[in-house]
């Protein structure tokens, strides 16, 4: 039975739940916009990294480099789209 619950993955789950709880502080405490956003950014990206490395085995195969290149590229495009759109459609008008 023990073999079915490897420590790494159990720790991963505990980390995930802890980070979720940490993120919830922005709801239960009255944080400033900047502080709240920073907490969310940090917890969200940490969670994503845990999923990728612990659960998705992103770094285990021979294609590690390609996989990470793909993810970085995707993240780059997503971030550029998000912030560029905000820049062009919202912030630019102030």
């Amino acid at each position: 039975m023990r073999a079915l619950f490897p420590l790494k993955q159990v720790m991963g789950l505990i980390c995930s739940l802890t980070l979720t709880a940490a993120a919830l502080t922005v709801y239960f405490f009255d944080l400033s916009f900047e502080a709240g956003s920073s907490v969310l950014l940090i917890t969200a990206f940490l969670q994503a990294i845990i999923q990728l490395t612990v659960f998705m085995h992103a770094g285990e195969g021979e294609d590690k480099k390609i996989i990470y290149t793909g993810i970085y590229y995707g993240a780059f495009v997503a971030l550029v789209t998000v912030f560029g759109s905000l820049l062009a459609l919202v912030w630019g008008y102030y």
Partner: protein
Amino acid sequence: MNFFDRFAVPNPSITIYASMIAIALTVIAIIAGLTYFKKWQYVWSEWLTTVDHKRIGIMYLISALIMLFRGGADAIMMRAQTAVPDNTLLGAKEYNEIFTTHGVVMIIFMAMAFIMALMNFAIPLQIGARDVAFPRLNALSYWLYFFGAMLFNISFVIGGSPDSGWSSYFPLAGTDFSQSVGTNYYMLALQISGLGTLLTGINFITTILKMRAPGMTLMKMPMFVWSALVTNFIIVFAFPVLTVALAMGTMDRLFGTNFFTTENGGMDMLWANLFWVWGHPEVYILILPAFGIYSEIISTFARRNLYGYKSMVISMVAISLLSFLVWVHHFFTMGQGALVNSIFSVTTMVIAVPTGIKIFNWLFTLRKGKIEFTVPMLYTLGFIPIFTIGGVTGVMLAMASADYQYHNTMFLVAHFHLVIIPGVVFAMIAGLTYWWPKMFGFMLNERIGKWAFWFIAIGVCVTFFPMFISGLNGQARRMYTYSESTGFGIWNMISFVGALGLLVGFILIVYNIYYSTRYSPRNIPGDPWDARSLEWATPTPVPEYNFAVIPHVDSSEAFWDYKKKGYQLFRDPVQSIHMPNNSGLPIIIGAGFFVWGFAFVFGIWPVVILSTLFIFGCLAYRSLEKDHGHYIPVSDIEIDEQGGSVQ
């Protein structure tokens, strides 16, 4: 509106009725011809169900050529209408439909398909592979593209074409201002073919990264392979943006949502923004493979290795990243202020740097070469000066303050045609001529080809240079007519003459295909151009499995080294070869998507639901199917290899 009224064409005219009859006759002719010559079996088992990348490439090629003529007919009609002031050849509505379909057909269904054609045909051969990573997915990609294109093209005769520009800006494209189903067609046809393109992107990245011949490290790949790799990365990350934008547009039009409306919090600018987040990388999706083809052709016919291989690669990777950082330059005039515009001006101009590096590297490849002016080389050499002019006007357009004056004018139209035609169309014709002997086993006639080149090269300049001037004189784009007092008349007339030249050029290309099919000698060697990369190491015609023995590679020009330095390409003994089986599933799923799209356009929801279930059913069937492909025994391989093999 009555249910059946929506299927009627909103502004019928003689041309539309004529095309209806023409389409019907063509379909009947094809069906009758196939039946009469008893070719159904052959067409179905050898082509429609094929998973062979070479055949899929050829099917892409035929589709692209048909679309080229559809889009070209639109272009000629546009130039004819605007050739003289106050012309009444076409009405405003017809003109609007024509320029919209011209844009969509040329970009999505012609240029993209042409690129897919050449990538499909050449990439596996160039990396020494037997097929792509997912052959069946590749066939599905083609059929999604094909049925998307068909769906878009029937809009002309059922329900009306889209008429709000290829960029389809909301709220003009919304239901308030575009009541016909035309824009629904636009949304769904692009969605379906876009899905096909995305799958191709995934397929080719995997193929190029995982299936290269032993020894071919990334920095030993031919330049066309590099350009295809970079392009497919852009495809994979840019097309989802289009998917989302189209889905939102479809929902606005059919489900009454408020994404791009002007009330209840909708934001019309968001469409423009998302469209160009995809649209600008799309430009590089078109141009980068072209750069790759030029690199191959220049080094082949200058008889020299490509100058500055490393900086070519670095500059392409740089372009691929920068291409995602510049889209706001398509709407500098939207009012986002000087700071935002300055940022995007600078990022846009920065793209000129890697592009400049490539131009100079090509020029220096010519240096100390031994230049032969074959047809592919002529297009490549024609590309350099015309593209440079198109490119530098791009830098001019990138300057936000000046763009306020160029935006939406014929200056812009001149710029992007002078980039896309020498950049993409020249490359496609060059690539077509270059790889034609490998595809079909005979050469295209050089003399007719050269005539076609001169008509096209001069035609492009004569058509588009005058637009710079009329644009600076205040002619906005997409105007179906103008008054004589504007003074635009002379420039538009010159453009029309140039367009006729282009028409002659393209007709010559078709004539060349006809002529060469009839008269060209068939016994050509596997390497007729004395070229440098691995596709020429195969016999002509290329066997199903491409390479009897997978080659070993030690440099970016392995085949050249094999010919000149006695380098050993094929070292392993012949073994039986595993190949995938043909499958009817891709075309069936594609047809399912066609029905789905058509029903969606007209909001026939029961059919939408049924076809959705059908598509998922096909996927489930595929998952449960046991199909491990087949083996070609050694005896068959050796029989094939007697003949034109270079081994």
